[in-house]
């Protein structure tokens, strides 16, 4: 007992592992089993899921389950952006669903209302689909990421998924992979042959928001220290202010974190940086109110946007964006900055130009990702 180690904080609620019968001997299943060995969670139950089982029944209070699943759907997808606003054109590599951390604003609460963390254990199928897509034309460039339906690195300690993916993509020079996270796990770095084809990325927020609305995540300093480590190793990083929250004291809060960034990395270390105001499907608001009763930013002046999502009233967004962009520009940021899902009006008001002026946001970010 004395030699038992503890899993990272954000994995300590995992109390059960489910594995599809067909995935029992998969490398991912073997690895999860091995990495649980010797930890305080070594004895959590494993349940084999028979073929054809509809859905898992797992309801144990605050506990979470890890489900190593044979996924039958598409692994490479388009980001579900809408036409009403400018989308970054990012492609998603779908490696799993749900997240062990708890951020009050997270849309995954509405998508997945259970406490089951799913990982697609049939990696060979995933690599096969990706190989077909990326190998079809080596001159077609892809900017891809795994952090849409899950955090890219949250389960890395157990699964090593990103390590495998980075290794696989070493043979595809036409692909840049962004690993977007709120935790620190840099074990994937060993697998990267080229530092210019992986973009480690962290979400950032005002310290108050980090302390009051994000739980079981790494601190802002830990994230920025990790970004510095990556920069020192030759990688460029991405940083994302999304969601930007309008709360009392937001000016001081966002000024503090913006200034803090440049204590750790230089503008040239940053491939790109997004700014996105908090927005959500209307059905998420009551879920946040139930799950996080102390959260108050959801009661700000939100109105239905052009895509039907609740958005902060435009003048309030403009006020925050202008403040942050001015401060970031003062630190030397410029071309790397972009808005996630914003209108031409907002682009023009804050940046003085809109994506059509530089050939579209997708094109700009592709250039930034590949370091053109």
């Amino acid at each position, binding site marked *: 007992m004395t030699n038992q180690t503890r899993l990272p904080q954000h994995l300590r609620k995992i109390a059960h592992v489910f594995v599809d019968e067909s995935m029992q001997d998969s490398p991912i299943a073997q690895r999860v089993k091995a990495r649980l060995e010797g930890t305080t969670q070594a004895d959590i139950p494993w349940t084999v899921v028979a073929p054809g089982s509809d859905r898992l029944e797992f309801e144990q209070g605050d506990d979470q389950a890890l489900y190593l699943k044979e996924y039958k759907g598409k692994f490479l997808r388009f980001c579900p952006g809408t036409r009403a606003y400018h989308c970054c054109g990012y492609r998603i590599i779908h490696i799993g669903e749900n997240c062990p951390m708890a951020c009050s604003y997270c849309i995954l609460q509405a998508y997945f209302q259970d406490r089951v963390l799913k990982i697609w254990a049939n990696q060979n199928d995933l690599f096969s689909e990706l190989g077909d897509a990326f190998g079809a034309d080596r001159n077609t460039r892809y900017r891809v990421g795994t952090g849409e339906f899950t955090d890219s690195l949250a389960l890395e300690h157990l699964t090593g998924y990103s390590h495998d993916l980075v290794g696989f993509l070493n043979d595809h020079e036409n692909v840049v992979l962004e690993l977007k996270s709120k935790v620190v796990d840099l074990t994937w770095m060993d697998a990267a042959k080229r530092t210019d084809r992986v973009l480690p990325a962290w979400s950032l927020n005002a310290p108050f928001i980090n302390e009051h609305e994000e739980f079981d995540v790494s601190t802002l300093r830990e994230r920025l220290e990790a970004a510095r480590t990556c920069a020192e190793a030759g990688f460029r990083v991405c940083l994302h202010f999304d969601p930007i929250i309008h709360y009392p004291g937001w000016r001081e809060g966002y000024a503090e974190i913006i200034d803090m960034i440049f204590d750790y990395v230089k503008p040239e270390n940053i491939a790109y940086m997004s700014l996105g105001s908090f927005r959500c499907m209307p059905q998420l608001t009551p879920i946040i109110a139930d799950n996080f009763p102390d959260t108050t930013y959801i009661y700000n*002046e939100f109105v*239905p946007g052009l895509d039907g999502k609740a958005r902060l*009233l435009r*003048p309030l967004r*403009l006020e925050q964006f202008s403040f942050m962009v001015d401060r970031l520009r003062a630190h030397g940021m410029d071309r790397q900055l972009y808005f996630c899902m914003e209108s031409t*009006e907002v682009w023009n008001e804050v940046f003085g130009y809109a994506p059509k002026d530089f050939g579209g946001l997708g094109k700009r970010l592709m250039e930034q990702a590949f370091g053109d």
Partner: protein
Amino acid sequence: MQLSSEILTAPADTMRDTGPHLFWSDKPQESLKNSINEFGQTTPILVQETTDGLEVIAGHARVSILREQGKPVLARLVEEADDVEKGLLYLADNAQRPLDDAMRFAALRYFRPLMDEKQLRSDILPRLGVKPKSKDAKLFAAWLDMADNWQAHLLAGRVPLAAGIVLGRMEEADRNAVEPLFANFAWSRSNGVNMLTWLFEAGKMANCSTADIMERAGVNEILRQGLSPKDCIARLNAAVKDTRYPELSALQEHFAKAAREITAGTRWRLNQPNNFETGGAEMTVQIKDADQLAKAVKDLETMAGVSTWETLWKLGGKDD
């Protein structure tokens, strides 16, 4: 519990037609009176023998009418019905009645002390036309935890069922502050829920009590004005909405002022279509003949030269 297959006759005065299981016993409907006058009693009521005589299990309204008319009552005998069974028989006998939320809630209040929450959800709610996992089921559960004074408002139809969620989220002091709003008016679902939600959310956002928000919005002053219920509710809603959405309300006011200036003396109307998410406006005009069309075109030309458009273009932007 058993139901006899025989019909007995007894004077109405020998029957006890009170008890908590008669949870929808209100004044008999005129149509039932007319029917009994014309045809007599067409269906027997349900009674149970007790040491105090016959207890009415279902059929309170018929007993009441027949008692008035001094006529005997046809009844079917129920044996050994416990409180749950009495309630279920009452529901079964009233299965054809159209239900509203107050009636459903009255039934749930009767059954709640007699069974656990699971049974209440799975057995009683469907009999009341409510799906056990529906939003309404959640609302009824929230109302069952509410204080008696608030339950009385729901039973009286003064507050909508849908208000249960926001009332449940409020602190007791905040609920006490809003209660006078429901003392004299029957609120529609949308007005009632909007009013409570805006008050609650404005309080959360400003980190102050609902009473403070009501003071800021001038709610108490409006209540003192002696307006008709319709006017009072409309004015209260407008005042509280302005407090909940100050920036949006200010933009809307500026827009309305600019629109009035631009369209003065014309049939044209200006509308901001998307909560200022984009600049600009929608223009509409109603015309029904060629003369009105010609006038609208001429008005449009005149309107195009009004300088107020510059104000309108900028609304919602940084330099607004």
